[in-house]
């Protein structure tokens, strides 16, 4: 992906030079393995810091909310879909953006890799399809496909759906993936089991709200958990309050979530809160044949009534 | 057998819990302003000895504590020379204050304090004092005036000048007292309102800063200004005071920030290294200038 970085820099410099944009939003190399930092560039020198590799899992649409500048933004498939959602929800204007499309073969799962090697991960490099890990316990290599983030492994929109420039030819889309195997497992549980499953899922939550804040959909000026007049949710570590937060946040993402995985990636304790959002995503697909952020031309299902909307759950 | 030294057990009794409010009863409620958003609450301590412990100076604040709702930091409006009660004037704004406005005489709640520092009364002895107040930030200034004009204290101070303004005559706090003070010759009162259509209004009309410019004494070594008011008033009063010759170490202000603990521990009210709740709320402008002014 070295050429991705070069190409992004090349395009960015051109856009800045031609005054097409005021700033570029991308990533700079992180200070620890498997982490890159979202970053902005306003000058040609700044641009040289920009990189792209398999550690760009944070969703950059998150950095566009309510910005006033003209922005060039690097966007992989999921980022572009959230940019579409942002545009539909009036959080940014299409005219403000120059979207630098990045075809994506997935981001690597830093936790998975940490779990697969001995000791502490010290350095991670990548060749086209191979991830090389140096840890305090030795060296190991993995096929990239083995260590993808869970959401990337089942991604079916790897190419940007909207873009002005592309850094490379589109990559082939995955067609033979079973997106909802995990969701079906939970659907098959009885209510007792399901309750217990989510109890266990959220038991380490520290309410840092990293999931919410990494999510490009969670841009409300005051989140319902922070609302004081009236207060909806308690603020302690009571498990019911924690569950209420995750559960309601997921609902607020219904029909909007692109399963970009930023929430799970951001979580300091490794909670897979995508188990909530994915269920809603699956329902939107099954009931309304809707996938979020694929086009600027239609409104999301919870935003729009159609006479043929299914009603079989309504009595 | 406890593995700890026995001395640790008695430590519990030694530490007074600074989060525990003194229980008080609402003794009187006065609606202060025509919009009914400001009420003055007079509290009486349930335990007599608590009143002695609640030993305060003009300029300090306390946390009004309503079980089930929370706490709110409010400047003490009564004066240390007034005994048997404490008094707070509260603007209806948030959850706690809205609830408080619905409470009635006889209700039990809590007061935690006194908290923060106070106006530098020792330093002000022998000096002329100018008090500039606007809107409902006049509360601790009332406390100060009552303290200074108390027969036991009046001789300690030079000239006392007060400029106090509100939007309309109906929005002035402590109207009866203002009228009393107007009549006195040992305090120079300048009451003003932004505007009024009351033909009988016999005081000033105009914003606080220009009235200050017109009426306040010149600043000098022996004169201090205490300024309490909304940010906009403070912003425009500062240059006026500078023009009148007040140096920044002689301009005293009381700051507000969001607070929870009131005792310097919860961490939210800081302006740089200073905590508004504990190192303040009273600062000289000179001190404030050294901070990042995040208030």
């Amino acid at each position, binding site marked *: 992906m070295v050429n991705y970085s070069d190409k992004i820099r090349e395009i960015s410099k051109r856009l800045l030079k031609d005054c097409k944009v005021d700033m570029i939003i991308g990533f700079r190399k992180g200070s620890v393995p498997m982490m890159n930092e979202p970053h902005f560039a306003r000058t040609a020198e700044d641009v040289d810091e920009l990189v792209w590799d398999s550690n760009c899992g944070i969703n950059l649409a998150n950095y566009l909310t309510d910005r006033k500048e003209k922005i060039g933004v690097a966007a992989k498939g999921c980022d572009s879909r959230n940019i579409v959602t942002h545009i539909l929800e009036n959080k940014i204007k299409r005219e403000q953006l120059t979207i630098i499309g990045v075809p994506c073969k997935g981001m690597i799962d830093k936790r998975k890799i940490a779990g697969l090697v001995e000791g502490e991960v010290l350095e991670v490099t990548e060749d086209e399809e191979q991830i090389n890990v140096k840890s305090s316990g030795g060296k190991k290599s993995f096929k990239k496909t083995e260590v993808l983030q869970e959401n990337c492994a089942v991604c079916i929109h790897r190419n940007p759906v909207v873009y002005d420039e592309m850094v490379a030819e589109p990559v082939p889309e995955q067609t033979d993936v079973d997106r909802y195997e995990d969701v079906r497992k939970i659907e098959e*549980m009885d*209510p*007792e*089991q*399901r*309750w*217990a*499953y*989510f109890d266990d899922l959220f038991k380490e939550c520290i309410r840092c709200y990293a999931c919410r804040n990494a999510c490009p959909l969670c841009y409300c000026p005051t989140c319902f958990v922070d609302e004081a007049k009236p207060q909806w949710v*308690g603020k*302690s*570590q*009571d498990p*019911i*309050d924690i*569950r*209420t937060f995750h*559960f309601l946040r997921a609902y607020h993402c219904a029909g909007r979530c692109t399963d970009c995985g930023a929430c799970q990636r951001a979580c300091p304790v490794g909670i897979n809160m995508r188990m*909530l959002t994915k269920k809603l995503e699956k329902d939107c697909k099954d009931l309304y044949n809707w996938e979020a952020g694929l086009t600027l031309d239609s409104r999301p299902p919870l935003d729009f009534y159609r006479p043929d909307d299914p*009603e079989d*759950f*309504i*009595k | 057998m406890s593995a700890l030294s026995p001395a640790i057990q008695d430590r519990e009794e030694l530490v007074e819990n600074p989060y525990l409010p003194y229980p008080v009863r609402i003794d009187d409620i006065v609606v202060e302003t025509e919009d009914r958003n400001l009420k003055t609450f007079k509290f009486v301590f349930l335990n007599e000895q608590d009143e002695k412990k609640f030993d305060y100076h003009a300029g300090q604040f306390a946390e009004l504590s309503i079980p089930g709702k929370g706490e709110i930091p409010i400047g003490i409006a009564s004066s240390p020379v007034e005994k048997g009660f404490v008094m707070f004037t509260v603007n209806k704004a948030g959850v706690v204050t809205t609830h408080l406005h619905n409470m009635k005489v006889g209700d039990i709640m809590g007061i935690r304090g006194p908290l923060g520092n106070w106006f530098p009364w020792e330093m002000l002895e022998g000096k002329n004092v100018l008090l500039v107040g606007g809107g409902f930030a006049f509360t601790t200034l009332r406390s100060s005036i009552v303290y200074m004009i108390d027969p036991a204290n009046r001789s300690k101070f030079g000239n006392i000048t007060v400029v106090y303004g509100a939007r309309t005559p109906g929005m002035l706090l402590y109207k009866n007292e203002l009228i009393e003070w107007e009549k006195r010759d040992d305090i120079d009162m300048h009451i003003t309102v932004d505007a009024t259509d009351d033909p009988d209004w016999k005081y000033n009309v105009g914003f606080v800063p220009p009235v200050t410019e017109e009426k306040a004494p010149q600043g000098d070594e022996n004169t201090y200004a205490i300024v309490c008011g909304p940010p906009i008033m403070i912003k425009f009063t500062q240059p006026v005071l500078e023009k009148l010759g007040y140096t920044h170490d002689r301009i005293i202000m009381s700051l507000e920030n969001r607070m929870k603990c009131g005792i310097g521990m919860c961490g939210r009210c800081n302006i740089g290294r200073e905590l508004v709740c504990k190192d303040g709320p009273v600062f000289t402008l000179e001190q404030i200038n050294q901070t990042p002014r995040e208030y």
Partner: protein
Amino acid sequence: MGVEPGRLQFSWISSAESTKFVDVVTKVTEAVKTLGPNQRFVKKEAKVA
């Protein structure tokens, strides 16, 4: 999530359909009563620490 079946119901009732509203509310109330007190999403008054 594991909320017991029968506690959640969706109905589409126009503002003109007062009898339907009464009907639905009565039925749901009865259904929920037979389920007994809710055990989930109920904060127990447990101490936090």
